[in-house]
């Protein structure tokens, strides 16, 4: 059994064919070699597979292909090509938001959706938005530094 859905994937009209219940995550990674989207748990707990569906963050391990018809899908690869996102990504790296990088694409996608709604979110709003994205490396501090502008002292800067 196979269906073909039409979606706008990373800004391009795309036909996606597969079993209707095939996970969007697998369609992206295995079918289209868009491996920026990661699998961390396969059950919607870790957020590593987050993509945007019509601009909203969703967990692609829980989204079957059949739900993607006539939808707009944006993956982390789209963000990479988005000029407005570049400054945010640079800030994210500079703030120490990246360590191992396995959770990073999902976090970056979730955070980008938040910043699109709210340019200068309060730290509690950031914690809420990111509560579905697990990171095991940073203690979330570097990630919060990247997203909350009014943070006090810059972490790790030398007191010269």
């Amino acid at each position: 059994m196979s269906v073909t859905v039409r979606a706008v994937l990373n800004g391009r009209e795309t036909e996606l064919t597969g079993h209707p219940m095939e996970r969007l995550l697998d369609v992206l990674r295995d079918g289209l070699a868009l491996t920026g989207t990661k699998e961390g748990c396969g059950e919607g707990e870790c957020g590593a597979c987050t993509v945007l569906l019509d601009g909203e963050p969703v967990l692609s391990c829980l989204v079957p292909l059949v739900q993607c018809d006539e939808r707009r899908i944006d993956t982390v690869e789209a963000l990479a090509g988005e000029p407005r996102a570049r400054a945010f990504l640079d800030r994210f790296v500079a703030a120490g938001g990246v360590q191992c990088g396995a959770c990073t694409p999902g976090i970056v996608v979730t955070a980008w959706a938040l910043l699109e709604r709210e340019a200068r979110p309060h730290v509690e709003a950031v914690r809420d938005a990111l509560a579905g994205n697990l990171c095991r490396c940073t203690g979330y501090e570097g990630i919060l530094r990247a997203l909350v502008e009014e943070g006090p002292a810059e972490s790790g800067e030398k007191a010269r």
Partner: protein
Amino acid sequence: MTGTDTVPAGERGDLGPIGTSPPRPDGLAKATGAAVFADDLAVAGLWFGATLRSPHPHARIAALRFDPARAPEGAVALTARDLPGFNGVQLIDDEWPILADGVVRHVGEAVAIVAAPTRVAARRALAAFDVEYEPLPAVLTLEAAAAAAAPPLAEVEIACGDVEAALAAAELVVEGSYRTGHQEHIYIECQAMTAWEEDGALVVAGSMQCPYYVHKALVHALGLPPDRARVRATAVGGGFGGKEDYPSLIGLHAALLARAAGRPVRLAYDRHEDIVATTKRHPAEVSHRTGVAGDGTLLALDVEILLDGGAYRTLSPVVLSRAALHASGPYRCAHVRVRGRVLATHTAPNGAFRGFGAPQTQFAMERQMDRVARAAGLDPYEVRARNVAGPGDRLPTGQTLDDSASARLCLEEVERRTGFRERWRRHDAERGRGGVRFGDGAEGRTPARGVGLSLYFHGAGFTGNGERRMRSPVAARLLPDGRIEVLTAMTDMGQGCAAVFPQIAAAAAGVAEEDLVFAEPDTGEVPDSGPTVASRTTMIVGGAIARAVSELRRRVDAWLAAHGEEPGPFRAAAARYVAAGEPAEVVVHHETPEAQRFDEERYQGAAYPTFAWGADVAEVEVDPDTYAVRPLRVTAVCEVGRAIHPRLCAGQVEGGTLQAVGWALLEEVKLEGGRYLNDRLATYIIPTARDAPRIDVHLLERPWEGGPFGAKGMGELPMDGGAPAVAAAVENATGLAVEEVPITPERLFDLDRAGRRERG
């Protein structure tokens, strides 16, 4: 949000990029999804593997058959009988079976492996096995293992002075027993490995901390000449020790399947399989008897450590060694005896996990210090300030601490920054002994608040004579275009050697970072500079890099001088040097300082070249109705020698502290009859951004002459301090004596109820 900073340690001179925090070179590729992790690797003609695992903790395999007719076409299957050589994973020894042969010793043990054209087909192929198990009696807990009195997997004893006599003479003898549970690494990228044959060599590529460990295991089990096996690390999506030992096993499985199938095969675990099958932190029970003078001075420490090693020895002997060497904490005491054993259970082997035994024993020591404080009528700060070890003091092995001993500095700094003592006393007075009523249904009560203190240290680099034996080599060579290529086997699992190594090399050679290139960790290209473990990468390997590139610089400068040439830009000069056919490659070995001598039989001498030090203050709230503990803030003060890249260095402390807070409050591997009750991320809970406290990191620097630009190893250090500080804070808030982590609401409730029963 966070107040991480550093306290400068006087004039630093011109150190170039040392002490600056440029964006990590792999950062943007990771943030845009371009970095290639183990399961992202594109390989033509790739097949997938799957693993048949034991459902029993201990059983005889009475029959094991594979019926190809029921399997997807072409599927290949391997059992222990099909192995071409020795059935053991070479680590310290080789007793860990590649595939169970006749007997299974833990739930999730690999019994057979298959490969098929797709992931789904590989899983279907598992259904073509028929296995008959005859269950055998199983030893499932540390308690049961101790009662069974089987020979331990490892044993150690450290002794100095006369503990019994000192205990007999002490005014106070304080006893305590402390327990810590399993912890899962939960690197976000699960274990994955791909193998194929290429140019007559077996290639294994995937997620690992130690390419040469995997290489050694391949050579040992498959009987290959070393140059016929090649191991390459992809981007590593988190390690924390979990990718020190286990990759050797999954790498062997992938290699065996690739050879049997005659094509590339990938094994990529899902989270469930990763939790069930892979190594974890050793559960521990640590008992203390402490002799104390009336003024709170430590007179005698008698410590007994039991670690649950799981089904196979793997790395347990060295975990125990580090556990024992840290068991008396950063304190001065003349009479110490530490005895430790690792006991076998029918559970998955426990192995390397950030801290490597030290978090378990320092949790116990720090809780014991709080108990000693109470017995002596001191506050937690006073008892530590009275006993803290400093320069000139001796550790139980006889190692005399040098000027890099900074425990007191950390202790005083964390007090200065948090006002711990005053707050601890206030909460203690507010609460009154046993005065807090929990769970009595009264409404509108505010949560109880508490603060807790911990003081800790962590030996940097391999324990004992490990570094002396390895003499880890690092290579550097000048390329024809005049750039310096540096070759090491170190992997960046997030900690940031991809950023720190270029800083060290640029500063040591006096060149720009653009003049440097770093080889990928591929055993076919790089020398065996040892495993990426034990807080050794920056300090040991970074030190060797500094020497190697300095030597190349010296050669080029000498050649220029000899030929009367102007120095000019380095790259152009180096290119001329290479073009002239001058020797362009250097291999430098790490040399252990003569002063660091350790007797591994008697446990005497300097077990570590130096230590990193830390002090934490944790603040918590405890809900009086639900007993839920909410960590509000952890302030960590760490002395690290020199922070090469302060942001990444602080990042290690931030992440390690949260991993410790998770271990203290949330993380629990629940086993029933040896089977997992929570083998998923929905049920094995690690902290989210909502659960995490604010983590304030303050780095102190006292450059240590043995490390590059003064740097000491520090990646594991923060794992030692978080749990005892949180436990102490819960105790300060509730008056309940917390002796075990994780401090779940259920455990706290039971503790409260037991206390009430005792009080009547």
